[in-house]
């Protein structure tokens, strides 16, 4: 088992003929992802060379899903068109299969576009959106696995730690930390750093709690909003597996946007101190320094009798 994406999931790429889409489609196929094709409006009928194989291109997501029975679609479409691409995929998955996972990597989508797109996705209960502005989701396999996004595949290994994070490279840091104590990952999910996104921390915690392969969870937040606090309160009541938490931005000044559109302390709310405090209240193991995640995880596993 794993979360939402099995290691043999069939994946299509929206924007596969673009520079980013093509580059990452190639990397995903190299990793072992079952990448079955892609779509770009107006380029249907062409093929794209991914090095390990050639895959077909369709004009619409609907055509791609009908032909391939894809489980997931990853969006590398530029910001002005990304919300539309998400909604197209949501509608196609809903009509054809009644379910599907959409992963949006694109950074810089207007917030009001995302408000619309998220409402559209939420109207279709079988559809899950991960992102936008995220590294994607990866379920490492025994050989290969399903890498859907931009993360470096080679740093991962199959295992029992679930990772959920708002940040990209900080997720890689967390992966490296689990590897430093010889632990692999069940699934790693980047939920993205935008103010309005699809899947949140609570969705991920619930999925990890339900997943038999996952035995402990690493959760990485950052300043801004109150998603970490809400997730911590929820976890206290609903999660029995050990959680290790870190929050980036303890030194960030108020009122300044720290790279991610959502990473801002406004009106004194959304600070790292509040989030760490919420973690501690919920019995989450706290790492104050990302280099300590491995050590804290080890302690958590020992205390849970898992080592």
């Amino acid at each position, binding site marked *: 088992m794993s979360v939402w994406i099995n290691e043999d999931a069939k994946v299509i790429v929206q924007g596969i003929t673009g520079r980013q889409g093509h580059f990452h489609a190639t990397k995903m196929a190299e990793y072992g992802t079952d990448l079955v094709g892609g779509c770009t409006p107006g380029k249907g009928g062409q093929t794209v060379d991914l090095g390990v194989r050639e895959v077909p291109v369709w004009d619409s997501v609907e055509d791609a899903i009908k032909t391939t029975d894809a489980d997931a679609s990853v969006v590398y479409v530029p910001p002005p068109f990304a919300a539309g691409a998400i909604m197209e995929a949501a509608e196609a998955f809903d009509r054809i299969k009644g379910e599907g996972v959409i992963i949006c990597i694109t950074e810089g989508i207007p917030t*009001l576009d995302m408000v619309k797109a998220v409402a559209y996705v939420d109207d279709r209960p079988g559809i899950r959106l991960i992102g936008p502005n995220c590294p994607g989701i990866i379920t490492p396999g025994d050989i290969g696995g399903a890498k859907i996004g931009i993360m470096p595949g080679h740093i991962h290994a199959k295992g029992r730690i679930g990772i959920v994070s708002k940040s990209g490279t900080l997720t890689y840091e967390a992966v490296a930390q689990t590897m430093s104590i010889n632990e692999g990952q069940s699934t790693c999910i980047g939920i993205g750093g935008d103010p309005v996104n699809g899947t949140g921390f609570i969705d991920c915690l619930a999925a990890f709690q339900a997943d038999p392969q996952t035995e402990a969870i690493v959760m990485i937040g950052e300043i801004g909003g109150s998603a970490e606090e809400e997730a911590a309160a929820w976890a206290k009541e609903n999660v029995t597996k050990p959680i290790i938490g870190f929050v980036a931005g303890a*030194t960030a000044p108020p009122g300044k946007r*720290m790279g991610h*559109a959502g990473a801002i302390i406004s009106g004194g709310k959304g600070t790292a101190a509040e989030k760490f405090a919420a973690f501690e209240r919920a019995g989450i193991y706290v790492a*104050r320094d990302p280099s300590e995640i491995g050590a804290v995880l080890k302690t958590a596993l020992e205390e849970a009798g898992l080592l």
Partner: protein
Amino acid sequence: MNIHEYQGKQLFRDAGVPVLDGVHCTTVEEALAAYDNLGSKVVAVKSQIHAGGRGKGNLYCPETGELQMEGGVKIAFSREEVETYATNILGHILITKQTGEEGKLVHNLYVESGCDIAHEYYLAMLVDREAKSILIMASTEGGMDIEEVAESNPEAIHKIWIDPNSGLLPFQSRNLGTALGLEGGALKSFTKMLSKLHSVFIANDCAMVEINPLVKTGDDGIIALDAKVGFDSNAEFRHKDWDDMRDMGEEDEAEIRASEAGLSYVKLDGNIGCLVNGAGLAMATMDVIKLKGGDPANFLDVGGGANEEQVTTAFSIILEDPNVKGILVNIFGGIMRCDIIARGVIAAVENLGLEVPLVVRLAGTNVDEGKAILAESTLNIHPADDLASGAQRIVELIGGDQ
């Protein structure tokens, strides 16, 4: 991106959200001409800076630092008072609780007609990230900070959320107006105004609109007496007019240059420069420097696919800060390859003649090649294997916590 009150009011005026007549001025002469033309006996003379709290702020002389005038927003009852206030505001530094102690030099003034105020309200429209929809927030406590009201009198704050599928519905506007105690003509004016304000918010891709105060006049009119408008920078591509509204004087020059180079930079007060890939990791790097007893000089995210040129630009921006006594580079290569970063770092150090200590931590894609390139160089670069030891090293190299 934020704009000035006078610009926000122009957006309101164009969309039919009621505002008073007013004139944007940059000189005392223009302010006097504005007073003559407005034909209002009483006018407000308002400092235009992006920070809030102007009314309760104070103006200081930029040369001597002496107090020039109390209050950045003044009510003038005569031409002479307009002259005095405009003189005291323009070219002076306004310090409010939102500007920080360095304050803001005021270049712009707004002279606005007076009106008959029966009651002051607070109104804000913003994107609620938890509810994933637009939130309208209003309170009967106009003129007060909403944070203070939330603390002292939370039941005075009323909220409605807008379903993106249906938009702002008439019953929502009515209910909000009624909750504020409005009735009859005033309630009608309010609902009409709210619908137009919602259109302004959507049409301009606003991140936030705050009107404090929104006023009810003696004849049941509803008027926006203030306008604090912020745009969602992600939507810049579809708003060609934003460039004309941008006030470079309100933005940090280095931050603008960084953003033009595709970098994300925020200056801080410490002395250890940071160059990192990824926003979360960049924040975490600052945090670890602090944990090790140092003080970060900046946030700098070079993004996912930085090239040699961007790395050089990043170094040059960091080094412009005279406080920087050392630099920590922290790269976790994903898409970005460590060997490319290593070459970029060496090129930047050679081009810029770096004189402060430099610690470089590389991990991820092609890390061995990257480390080998750094090791072969004769430059004074200190390698580190992980973030904690890298942060520790740079703090030690600049002489610890000073």
